[in-house]
C-alpha cells in the first residue's frame, strides 16, 4: 500500500488513542443531541454500555456477523431510552437526569450479578471486527446529519426549545416529540459507540459504563460547547488527548479533568467553540 512506514508505525503505536478519539466523538454527539433540545441526560454511558453488552453477546453467543451486529446494537439502547423517556420527558427539569443516573447504576448491578453478562469479569474474547475507518465514517456521517438538521426547520425548533419552551410550543413545536426524538437519537449514537468500542478492545467490564464516564461525556459538551455539532467533538478530542499528554501525572490526571470542567463552566459558559450556527438552509 501507499502508506509510508513511519505513518504505519505511528498509527500502530497510537491505535488505541485513534479509536478512542473517534468513539468519544460519537459519544460527544450523543450528549450534544440531548443538550441541544434543552434537556440534561446522564445516561450516555449507560446507553453505551447497553450497546457494548448487547453487541458483544450478539457476536459471542449468536455468532452474528459484524455488519449485522453494528446496526442491531442500537436496538436495546433505543428501547431503554423509550422506557425512560416516556415517563420523564413529560415533566420539565431534572427528572431525566435523575432517571438516567439511576439507569446507569441499575445496569451496573445487573452486569455484575447476572451470569449472562460475565459478572465482575465482564465479557472477553470479543473479536476486533470494528475497523478504524468504520468508526470515522460513522462519526463523519453523524456530524454531517446533525449539521444538516441544525440548519433547518428542525434545528430552529431545537434552539427555540432550548431558549424558551413556552414560546417554542406556542410556535407549534411539539416539545415532547422533539425531546423523545433527541433522546432516541442520543441512545442510538451511544449504542453504536459502545458496539464499536467493544469490538476494538476485545474486553468489556461492568465498571466502564458507570457514573464517572457519564460525567466525562457530559464534560465533552461542557468544554466544547453546543453551538454546533463540531463543538462537542472538539471538546471530546481535547479531553481524550489530554490524559495522554499528562501521563507523567498518573493519578492526578483525573484532577485535571475536574479542573477543566470547573474552568469551562466558570469562564466559557458557551464552550470553547461558542460560534452559533446559522439556522437557515436557503
Amino acid at each position, binding site marked *: 500500500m501507499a502508506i509510508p512506514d513511519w505513518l504505519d508505525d505511528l498509527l500502530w503505536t497510537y491505535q488505541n488513542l485513534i479509536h478512542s478519539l473517534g468513539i468519544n466523538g460519537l459519544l460527544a454527539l450523543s450528549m450534544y443531541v440531548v443538550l441541544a433540545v434543552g434537556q440534561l441526560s446522564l445516561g450516555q454511558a449507560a446507553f453505551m454500555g447497553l450497546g457494548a453488552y448487547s453487541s458483544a453477546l450478539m457476536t459471542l453467543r449468536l455468532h452474528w456477523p459484524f455488519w449485522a451486529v453494528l446496526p442491531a446494537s442500537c436496538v436495546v439502547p433505543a428501547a431503554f431510552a423509550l422506557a425512560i423517556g416516556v415517563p420523564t420527558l413529560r415533566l420539565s427539569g431534572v427528572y431525566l437526569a435523575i432517571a438516567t443516573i439511576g439507569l446507569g447504576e441499575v445496569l451496573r448491578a445487573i452486569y455484575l450479578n447476572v451470569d449472562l453478562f460475565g459478572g465482575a469479569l465482564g465479557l472477553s474474547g470479543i473479536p476486533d471486527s470494528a475497523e478504524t475507518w468504520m468508526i470515522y465514517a460513522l462519526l463523519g456521517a453523524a456530524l454531517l*446529519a446533525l449539521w444538516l438538521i441544525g440548519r433547518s*426547520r428542525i434545528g*430552529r*425548533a431545537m434552539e*427555540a426549545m432550548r431558549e424558551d419552551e413556552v*414560546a417554542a*410550543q406556542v*410556535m*407549534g413545536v*411539539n416539545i415532547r416529540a422533539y425531546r423523545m426524538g433527541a433522546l432516541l437519537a442520543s441512545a442510538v449514537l451511544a449504542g453504536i459507540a459502545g458496539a464499536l468500542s467493544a469490538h476494538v478492545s476485545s474486553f468489556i467490564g461492568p465498571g466502564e459504563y458507570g457514573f464517572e464516564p457519564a460525567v466525562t461525556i457530559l464534560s465533552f459538551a461542557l468544554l466544547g460547547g453546543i453551538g454546533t455539532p463540531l463543538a462537542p467533538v472538539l471538546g471530546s478530542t481535547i479531553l481524550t488527548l489530554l490524559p495522554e499528554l499528562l501521563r507523567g501525572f498518573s493519578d492526578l490526571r483525573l484532577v485535571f479533568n475536574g479542573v477543566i470542567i470547573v474552568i469551562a463552566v466558570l469562564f466559557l459558559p458557551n464552550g470553547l467553540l461558542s460560534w452559533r450556527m446559522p439556522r437557515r438552509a436557503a
Partner: protein
Amino acid sequence: MTPCGMISGGMTALLRTEGLTRRYAGLVAVDAVDMAVEPGLVHAVIGPNGAGKTTLFNLISGIVAPSAGSVWLGGADITRLPADRRAQRGIARTFQNIRVFGAMTVLENVLTGLHARPGPGIAATILRLPRFRRMERDCVARARAALDFVGLADRAEERAAALAYGDQRRLEIARALAPEPRLLLLDEPAAGMNPAETEALGHLVRRIRAAGTTVLLVEHDMGFVMGVSDRVTVLNFGRRIFDGAPAAARRESVVIEAYLGPKVAARLAREAAS
C-alpha cells in the same frame, strides 16, 4: 345549544369560550367566562389588574389547562389540544413580557414562528431533497414578507436581543403573523411604549385587521383600546361583567365601578346627572 352563552352570533364566531374557568389554590382567576370573537374584528379584553386577562389568554392558547369549560375554534372543540396543536390550527400569540429568541437573528425568529406550518420531515431535511429546499425558500419568503409588514425588513440579519424594546415587540408580532394565523392574540402590546410607538402600533393593528386576520388583544391603555377595537369584553375578578361596543363600555356603570371603585363611580354618576 349554548347553555349560558347568550351571545349574539355565537355560532358564527371564530373563537368561542363556554363557561371557561381556571381555579388556583384559593383563587378563581377565570370564572365561567363565555365569550365569542367574531371573524375579521379586533376584539379587546380589558379589566383592572388581576382580572384574569392573561390567564384567559393562556387558556385560549393552551399554555394553561382549564379547570372547567371549553374553547372552540371555528366550530371545533380545542379544549383538550396542547398549545402546539392549537398553533397548527391557526392560533398565534405574543407575550406581555417579550419572549423573542434572543440568540437568534431577527429572520430566524420569524422562521421559527413558521413551525406552525407543516415541514418537510427529517429524511428530506438530511437528504436536502427538492421538497426541503422548496419549503425552506418558501419559509424565508414568508418570513421576509412578515418582517416587511411590521417594518423590520432591514433588520433581518441582526441578533434579536440587540433590537430596541419597541422593535422586539414588532418582531414578536411578525413572528406570530408569519404562519398566517386565523386568530392573533396580542397580550398587552402597548405595554412600555411611548405615545408615538403606541400610535404606530394602533396603525399596525388596523393593518392586520385590514389584511383579514382576527385580533384578540388584552390591553391597559384605554386610549389604544378605544381606538382600535370593534368590540370589548370587560373582566373583573375573573368574571365577564360587560360585552359590547367600546363606546358602550365607557358609559356602563359596572365597568366604571370595576375600574374606579363604587364610591368614585357613584360620585361621577351624580356629577353627570346634575
